[in-house]
């Protein structure tokens, strides 16, 4: 299984390296969202700063839809998915490989996106929040890519891929979004009282990070179990 995963992940990452679609199309889209949100909220710092954690994760989620769609489009464009089925590689390994490749792409996107949010919304990262921030981002991203890869292969074989994928993924990852937004809020100290003091402290974010880790593991387990069946039917 691990050998398969390495093979698949290497292939998907090489594809990204050669085409640079995630870097030069999905990532700019994510940053664009951050700008559009500012328009939506009238660039009002009183609204943007408390909303920043949530807006960040919405941008990540929408980018995930694009990235997953792109990943499976390369598989179905010339019948490669068929050939993957024929290769009788371990499906769990294929799932793992694709999820890892997607994870690396997403994490890179999040780093740049976070920089964008910090700059555009005038938010800063307190030193005490960095570990929480990184842990949260990692755990949430694992859960997101697991769900994305699983539903991605399901919708890959359909004619309604682009519209079905968000509808399936969205509700299922809602717990991740709730947890990640709250944890980021704690890590960044963006919720402040009327006197400007931080109302939600870093320590309050750790239970959320713990919850996210548990969820992430659950989603990965589900993906490992179900991917083979969905690949076969794609």
């Amino acid at each position, binding site marked *: 299984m691990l050998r398969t995963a390495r*093979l698949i992940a290497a*292939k998907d990452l*090489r*594809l990204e390296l*050669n*085409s640079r679609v995630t870097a030069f199309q999905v990532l700019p889209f994510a940053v664009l969202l951050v700008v559009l949100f500012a328009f939506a909220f009238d660039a009002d710092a009183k609204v943007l700063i408390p909303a920043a954690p949530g807006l960040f994760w919405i941008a990540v989620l929408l980018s995930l839809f694009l990235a997953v769609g792109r990943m499976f489009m*390369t598989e179905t*464009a*010339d*019948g*490669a998915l*068929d*050939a*993957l*089925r*024929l*290769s*009788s*590689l371990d499906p769990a390994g294929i799932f793992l490989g694709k999820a890892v490749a997607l994870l690396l792409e997403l994490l890179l996107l999040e780093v740049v996106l976070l920089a964008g949010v910090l700059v555009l919304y005038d938010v800063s990262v307190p030193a005490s929040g960095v570990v929480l921030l990184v842990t949260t981002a990692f755990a949430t991203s694992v859960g997101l890519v697991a769900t994305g890869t699983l539903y991605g292969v399901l919708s890959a074989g359909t004619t309604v891929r682009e519209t079905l994928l968000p509808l399936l993924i969205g509700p299922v990852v809602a717990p991740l979004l709730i947890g990640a937004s709250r944890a980021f809020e704690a890590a960044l100290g963006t919720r402040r009282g009327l006197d400007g003091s931080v109302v939600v402290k870093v320590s309050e974010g750790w239970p959320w990070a713990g919850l996210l880790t548990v969820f992430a593991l659950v989603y990965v387990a589900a993906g490992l179990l179900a991917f083979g069946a969905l690949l076969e039917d794609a």
Partner: protein
Amino acid sequence: MEPVVHFSEAVAVHGRFPVLTGASLTVNPCEIVLLRGPNGAGKTSLLRACAGLLPVVQGIANVLGVDLTQDRKAVRARVGLLSHANGLYDDLTVTENVRFWGQTAGASDAEVKAALAELGLSGRLATVKVVKLSAGQRRRTALATVLARRPELWLLDEPHAGLDGDGRDLIDDVLRRAAAAGATILFASHELDRAEPLATRVVRIDAGRVVQPTC
């Protein structure tokens, strides 16, 4: 010797559409069998059924000793299918594609290089992205991915499609060499003037039935 493919009145469905309605066919080792018939006759379906991708719901269907009605997944690793689509990744180079697909079957770097050489893809073309290739060059690349996996049974759907005269000669040489080395080849083609000299036997299929297993 055990036949490589043995179908008897096999019925296969694609969704709710019956694509094979009683296919009977025997292919022996090292044969190069041509499958011919009009469009929609079921040539592609028969190839896919042999590859274990299409479920056979009635009749007998054995490939390489595997009963396809029981466990069609078991045969997949041992066959090489070249379908209408090429199964290539547009943004990878020729070498990257052949290497990836070769490695899924455990091929070594040497075997990958050999496959590229045999299909005339070692020179300038080796580092070109597939998206930039002509249809014929893509077909050769796709065949190289099959060659790199060294399957026991080759299933080819219109292998000559999109190729010029030289390309077709190249493919014919590759297939003859593979058969001589012990592989069995079943291929579908419309281009009879090219296909018939290559084949050791011709089989006709029409409306999902094999009508004339000529010898």
